[in-house]
């Protein structure tokens, strides 16, 4: 094998220009593979980050009340009580789980909330709002309101509210001015606008109002317990696993963000499939390139192959010489392509920090190892046909020339 390696290397270095072009071709294919991996992966991360980065990744909510069957006492009549949908479901003892949840791996923040619907009223102007009552230090725990502030601040008191920019526009209100929040329970409280944010998600910017927990408890008449707990994760992709784990630990219903975003996930899957197809074509191009170049080499070196066979080289030895050439071309081209890919992708910021409109490539998702391994395997497979062709060269036909 060592001697076959020497001959393979000698053949490759004998024609440096041809070998250089071949290796460059493989390197370009690997570069495309890595770039597409980084682009598709980065685009996915960017989309997910932009779409669900400012919402809860796992939400613990109170289970809906199930209809129940009254006890069958005399076996004569069954009475079913209808679930009362008007009753507000409350997580009664969930606050006890907060330290436990905050200690879980991958959990970045836990935000206990009181939520409800109502109207924001200013003079004759009136707009429906989704009111979220949060602890003052958790205002930006889920949606990063601090970064999205366009005016004021997020320092919540029992007499202040933070609203979205579209809602402020609808109500024609600014920071320091007062609006009245009316809840669907008929409660009402005047609040000073402390801050205005523009996250870029219309549903939040036009319909959200953040108040303190105490204010929310007053508006929605919830003296104890929570409406829900929102959890933000470091790793968005771990949401399903973490949700199952939380449900197992707490016995509460934990819903990952993926449950409500099936269309986004389908889109990402389709995007990933498109990327796989492009990568497959890049690999096929590499295989065809290596195979055709080695077939040409086999034809050009027929006399030498015949002489080697006449001198006692086995068919297996000849196969080894050409397969090793394929492997060397593949590994060399793959390493160069991977190196170039890394150099080209490294200057780009990761998608989490990418500026809007920038190229969301993610060097971490370049699949460098996979590209090198698949290219090496592809090049070896590509060399088998030329190698077998070489091994079948009849030394007699060559010696006679």
């Amino acid at each position, binding site marked *: *094998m*060592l*001697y*076959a390696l*020497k001959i393979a290397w*000698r*053949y490759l270095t*004998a024609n440096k220009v041809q070998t250089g072009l071949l290796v460059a071709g493989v390197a370009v294919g690997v570069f495309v593979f890595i770039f597409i991996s980084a682009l598709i992966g980065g685009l996915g991360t960017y989309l997910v980050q932009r779409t669900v980065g400012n919402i809860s990744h796992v939400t613990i909510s109170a289970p809906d009340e199930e209809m129940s069957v009254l006890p069958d006492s005399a076996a004569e009549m069954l009475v079913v009580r209808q679930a009362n949908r008007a009753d507000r479901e409350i997580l009664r003892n969930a606050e006890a789980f907060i330290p436990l949840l905050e200690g879980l791996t991958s959990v970045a923040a836990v935000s206990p909330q009181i939520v409800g619907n109502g109207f924001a009223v200013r003079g004759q102007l009136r707009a429906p709002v989704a009111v979220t009552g949060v602890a003052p230090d958790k205002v930006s725990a889920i949606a990063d309101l601090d970064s999205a502030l366009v005016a004021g601040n997020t320092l919540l008191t029992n007499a202040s509210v933070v609203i979205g920019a579209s809602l402020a526009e609808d109500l024609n209100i600014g920071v320091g001015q007062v609006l009245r929040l009316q809840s669907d329970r008929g409660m009402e409280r005047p609040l000073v606008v402390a801050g205005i944010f523009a996250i870029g998600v219309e549903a939040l910017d036009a319909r959200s109002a953040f108040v303190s927990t105490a204010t929310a408890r007053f508006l929605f008449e919830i003296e104890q317990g929570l409406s829900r707990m929102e959890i933000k994760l470091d790793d968005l992709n771990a949401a399903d696993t973490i949700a199952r784990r939380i449900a197992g630990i707490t016995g509460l219903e934990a819903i990952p963000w993926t449950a409500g975003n099936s269309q986004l996930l389908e889109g990402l899957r389709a995007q990933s499939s498109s990327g796989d197809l492009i990568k497959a074509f890049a690999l096929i191009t590499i295989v065809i390139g290596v195979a055709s170049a080695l077939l040409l080499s086999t034809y050009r070196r027929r*006399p*030498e192959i*015949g*002489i*080697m*066979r*006449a*001198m*006692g*080289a*086995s*068919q297996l*030895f000849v196969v080894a010489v050409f397969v090793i050439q394929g492997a060397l071309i593949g590994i060399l081209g793959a390493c160069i392509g991977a190196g170039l890919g890394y150099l080209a992708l490294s200057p780009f910021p990761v998608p989490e920090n990418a500026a809007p409109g920038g190229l969301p490539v993610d060097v971490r998702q370049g699949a460098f190892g996979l590209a090198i391994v698949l290219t090496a395997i592809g090049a070896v497979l590509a060399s088998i046909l030329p190698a077998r062709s070489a091994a079948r060269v009849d*030394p*007699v036909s*060559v*010696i*006679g*020339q």
Partner: protein
Amino acid sequence: MSPFLEVTDLFKTYGEGETATPVLKGLSLTLAQGERAALLGPSGSGKSTLLTILGTLMQPTSGRHVMLGEDLTRASDRARTEFRNRHIGFVFQFHHLLPDFTALENVVFPSAVAAGRETASARHRGTELLARVGLSNRVNFRATQLSGGQKQRVAIARALMNRPELILADEPTGNLDRESAKQVMDLITEINREERTTFLISTHDDNIAQACGRQIRVLDGRTIVDGQ
């Protein structure tokens, strides 16, 4: 005791059916160890076919081929390749060196391909053989940098590398000038005498034939004259 090399009633036909072309038609021949024999005959008489069969590069259509007591007639490609590497050397009219390799690497090839690597002892023997054929100052020259006579002497050194019992030479001087041809034949004679290596030399040159101890004339696929 069986002879060193024996072929009996050898037939070789190229093609099949209407295109069948018989080349050897019942040829029989024996060679003793240490002989230096010339194989003579016009073009198309079957000399080259006989050499390729004796060199285990091709199998006869029928007949028997035995060398060193081993029946090679129907041996597998692998067995014939190993046998050829160990026991047979070749010198061709057109030297057939590997162009991307140095003189020493060409000489060492038969040993390296059997061992799987170039050993130090093989390189030492290769250097000695190149010195013996008068090329000690061309050891690291590429084949493409050598003259025709030098290439043929490298080919002879390569044929001797694995200490084969038989060397088959097909017009070894046919492509050389008179002076180079004489050097090559002197070398063959010297090796034959000193190492008792058996030579079978296909040639059209009567001078070379006379320099051999035995002349075997082939005509129309049969041996017609075999004498001292």
